[in-house]
């Protein structure tokens, strides 16, 4: 095995005729929502610029500052959403015009299913995998030291099935990353699909993703995450967030092959790319020691998926987004669980970015301009700007209320934001072919972002600064 083999040199996928042809610019609904969104963004930009041009306009100091702050936020928000709209639309058009063809030879795909106390969800997950429309694949369910009967339930599926083989690997608890590494060691597929045990793939998802691998430069494909358990406001808001935040970003990033995070519930990788990552950044461990297993996934961060994706991008691999590949996952339906999850995500993102900075310091060549631009475009707003804006905005609102000021004059801005968010929500729901009923929870999206997520952001940032020990 050559150590310096380039990432996707030996694509196992040969091309055939395109599998489908659709309208390159999407449906009428999508076009209409896109036009409305772009107009709203431009309007918001113009209003913000005009407001900034006018200055304080003789208001009271606090109100004038609030107005200017809102205008600045509107300027940033307008620019951001406008870029999202345009990039997503272009990405859709590009994807439809250059629809990936069906390969003549479908490569073997290894599907990793790490399980830890997933007795309730493992069976439906494996059922959904067995129903996948794909000629040849293997499923490796890794029981990561579960204390319930996950292993027993998974063992029921072990063996050969119609078009796949299910293997169940039992190992001591070592974390999701070690479960992935264990599966990586045991797998044989040239393409590797990582999912969560509580995720359920749609029947055609795997084929959609493998088609994108026809391009030899593509080292990874991110699929669309959907919330399965839309039972309450929190889960619906997460469903909307997955589309408006993650989906929007990935559409834009996918256009440049720079999807920064291949999500844990559905992500397809090329084995050679993972081996190269392991070869460059891997750690040696006594395999099986404390349940940990070395491999391309590393356990020094909370976000092993982000870590792996960034490592692949650092080595020149392209990661694209396939919104047709859908994984229905279970989102936290309780506030505490949600905060825990977001704590891990935010801390994980910070850890991975710090690790990335260390890697760049060691080898500046891994930093490509498009990667730098997208990291700045994504994480400067997400980790710094937006939380700061929400907190400052909240402070302004409280100050204004405490000062006895009337908030009605600022209602226009909030209405504009709400309209823009509505159009963005409608557009990205339309692009991802999700249910438009999600828009019903849109009025709560601002408080959800501003209060719920930022509270998790706050504690995770504090913990990361303090260097509190990681705990899942």
């Amino acid at each position, binding site marked *: *095995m050559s150590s310096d083999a380039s990432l996707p040199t030996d694509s196992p996928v040969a091309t055939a005729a395109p599998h489908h042809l659709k309208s390159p610019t999407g449906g009428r609904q999508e076009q209409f929502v896109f036009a409305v969104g772009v107009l709203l963004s431009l309007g918001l930009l113009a209003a913000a610029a005009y407001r900034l041009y006018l200055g304080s306009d003789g208001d009271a100091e606090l109100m004038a500052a609030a107005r200017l702050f809102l205008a600045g936020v509107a300027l940033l928000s307008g620019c951001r959403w406008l870029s999202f709209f345009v990039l997503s639309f272009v990405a859709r058009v590009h994807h439809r015009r250059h629809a990936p063809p069906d390969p003549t030879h479908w490569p073997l795909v290894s599907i990793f299913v790490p399980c830890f106390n997933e007795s309730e969800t493992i069976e439906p997950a494996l059922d959904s995998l067995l129903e996948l429309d794909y000629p040849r694949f293997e499923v490796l369910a890794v029981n990561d030291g579960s204390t319930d009967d996950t292993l027993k339930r998974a063992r029921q599926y072990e063996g050969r099935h119609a078009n796949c083989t299910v293997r169940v690997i039992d190992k001591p608890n070592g974390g999701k990353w070690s479960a992935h590494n264990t599966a990586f*060691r*045991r797998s044989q597929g040239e393409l590797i699909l990582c999912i969560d045990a509580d995720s359920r793939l749609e029947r055609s998802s795997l084929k959609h993703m493998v088609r994108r691998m026809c391009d030899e430069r593509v080292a990874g494909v991110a699929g669309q995450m959907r919330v399965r358990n839309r039972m309450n406001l929190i889960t619906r808001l997460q469903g909307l967030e997955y589309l408006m935040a993650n989906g929007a970003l990935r559409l834009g990033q996918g256009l440049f092959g720079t999807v920064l995070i291949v999500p844990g519930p559905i992500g397809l990788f090329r084995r050679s790319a993972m081996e190269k990552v392991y070869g460059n950044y891997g750690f040696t461990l006594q395999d099986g020691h404390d349940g940990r297993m070395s491999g391309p996934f590393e356990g020094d961060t909370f976000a092993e998926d982000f870590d792996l994706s960034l490592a692949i991008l650092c080595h020149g691999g392209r990661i694209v987004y396939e919104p047709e590949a859908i994984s229905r996952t279970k989102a936290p339906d309780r506030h505490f669980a949600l905060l825990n999850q977001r704590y891990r995500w935010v801390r994980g993102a910070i850890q991975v970015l710090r690790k990335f900075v260390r890697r760049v310091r060691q080898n500046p060549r891994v930093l490509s301009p498009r990667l730098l631009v997208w990291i700045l475009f994504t994480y400067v707003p997400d980790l710094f700007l937006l939380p700061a804006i929400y907190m400052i905005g909240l402070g302004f609102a409280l100050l204004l209320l405490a000062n006895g000021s009337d908030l009605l004059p600022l209602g226009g801005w909030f209405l504009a934001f709400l309209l823009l968010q509505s159009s963005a929500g409608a557009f990205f729901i339309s692009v991802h072919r999700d249910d438009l009923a999600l828009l019903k929870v849109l009025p709560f999206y601002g408080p959800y972002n501003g209060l719920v997520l930022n509270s998790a952001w706050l504690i995770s940032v504090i913990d990361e600064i303090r260097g509190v020990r990681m705990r899942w």
Partner: protein
Amino acid sequence: MESSRVLTLILLSGGLGFGGYCVACALHVWKARIAGSGNHAGASRCTRRLKGIGVALIAGGALTATVGLIVQLFLNREGVLRGEQLTTIRPPETLLVQEVTSAETVRAADWIATFRSPEREAQIEVNELKLENHAAQQRVLRSEPLKPDAEITRHLQEALAEQRHLQMTLSELELEDRRLNRERLRDQLAREKEIGELGEKIGSLESELKQAEADREYQAASLSRLISIRRRDEAVIPDDQYEQLRSEARIAEEEVLRLQESVRAFEAERAKQKHRLHELLTVAEQQSTEYQTRIVGLRERLAAVSQQHESLQRQLDSDLVRAREHRQEQLGQLGIALQQTERELAGLKDSITIRAPRAGRIVYRDPSPQTVKPGEPLLVFSPDAGLRVRLRLPTWEARLLAGAGPVRLQLIEPETEQGKVQQRFIERRFLGSWASSASLPQDRGFALVELSCEPPGDAIRSLAAGDEIAVRMIWLAPLYRNPLVHWGALLAALGACGITTTVVLSRKVESGSHARERLSVHNSTRRGPPPLVSSEDAMLHLLGSQLREAIVRGEVDPSLIAAAEWALDGHRPRAIRLMALGLGEDAEFLQYVENCWKQLSAEEPADEFRGANCGNTNALQQRTAAVLRPIASESLRRRLHFIERQWDELAVSRQRIDEAAAIKASEFMSASAAALRSHGTDRSSRTA
């Protein structure tokens, strides 16, 4: 309660509540994580109590502040608006509104409204005509000359005419006198010049005469001498010469005579001229004397006439003064008539026009002035300071209100006796500014605040009708200025100090070993496992794993074995170490190895291994064993050795069995052949 206040309250409480809930959840998660990560420290009873007190203080502070906020939000801020110092203009019954001023502010006596009345308008027109007539008369009177006494004027004109006649006559006489003198002088000069010329001619004639007499004498002497000569000898002097000389003498004589005659003629002429000159001078003297006499007479006459003229002129001047005074009196009369007409006109106009009684602002103007009924307010004035709303506020809010600038006020619709709200005001909100405040001595903690404001038109109309209107102030003092909030903040700060103290105490209690443990845990977390040296290491590690996986699956690939052999050849020490790591060591794997060994033996060797069988194992088995032997652990190596030996023994026994079976088979075959041969005929016939 006002809807905006309810909205504010809902927003504030909802935002704070949800924010507090989120923060509490986050803290809960945080606490759980810190507890799970072992970052918490044991707390003593004292610190727990102190922490409890701190939490209680914070809760008390929050409660106090909340109570303060609720009290402030629910405080009644209603006041009263009265129509004090309002001036209302109402149209009279007999008049109709024609025009109303559009100005916002007016000065005293400024026009503000005009009414209509046909009779008065006719009178106004008549008076305006009179006014024009008087003005025209004034203009005519001013343009007419003054009229003096006619007798005086006539006398004066006569005197003036005589004076002019005398003056003219005098002038003519003086001119004539001067002309006479000039002519006399000119004649005198001409005569004297002529006389002088005659004297000169006489002188020249006398000199010629003298010359002629000398010439005659010379001729006479010459002739006498010639005659004497001739007389002595006639022959000497010819006759012609003599005759010539004689004629010359005669000519000379004649010339003398002629000259003498001329001298005399000229002298006579000169004498004549002198005589004439004398006569002329005499005549001129006489005429001049006559003229002077007449001039003196005329001058005397002229002086008399001038005196008379001056006297008449004085009389005329005095008469003109009288005439001017008379005209002034006439003009004065006309002016008085004019003023009288103007007054009448102004009075008439004032009877249909309203002027501002004082300076102020028009705060209400009926939107349809022409349709205002008599008695209803047409215009309402307010003083420049505006109207006043009086309301009762806490003293601290009153102080803050003084610096708050314009605040919004809202009219409260009155209720009917049936309890229904009347909808009288369309525009309900307006601005007011703090004007004054005074504490209420009998109501401690509260103050009477006056706000100057400009209520909407509907409210002004009601106020002009004498109503009182209730007004609510839509202003909330900054909540952080609330004294109860201050007390709450103080309590919370004390609580926070207490909790901080407990944290500090807890940290001091922490042992150094615990801190070191945390540090070591932290460092180990940060450092992680040792990194690989290079990508080849990872590949070797991975190769070990794949070898294990192939053995576990029982699908040992010759190419995989070849890669392992290549790795062991090229990087033997590292390959052994890293592939061993990837291969792992567990009891389950030993079983897999054994199974794989069996499976390999059953497989048909590939082409490249065909013919390479050595002993009882095939080449793939041997190569797999050769690869596994260096990288396997001791137990696996023993197990492998055992398997090989067992397999060899098994192979030997199998070979023996095969040999025995072959012998038996050959025996059986030979026996069978013999049997077949013996029963060959029967079988062939049965088969056929």
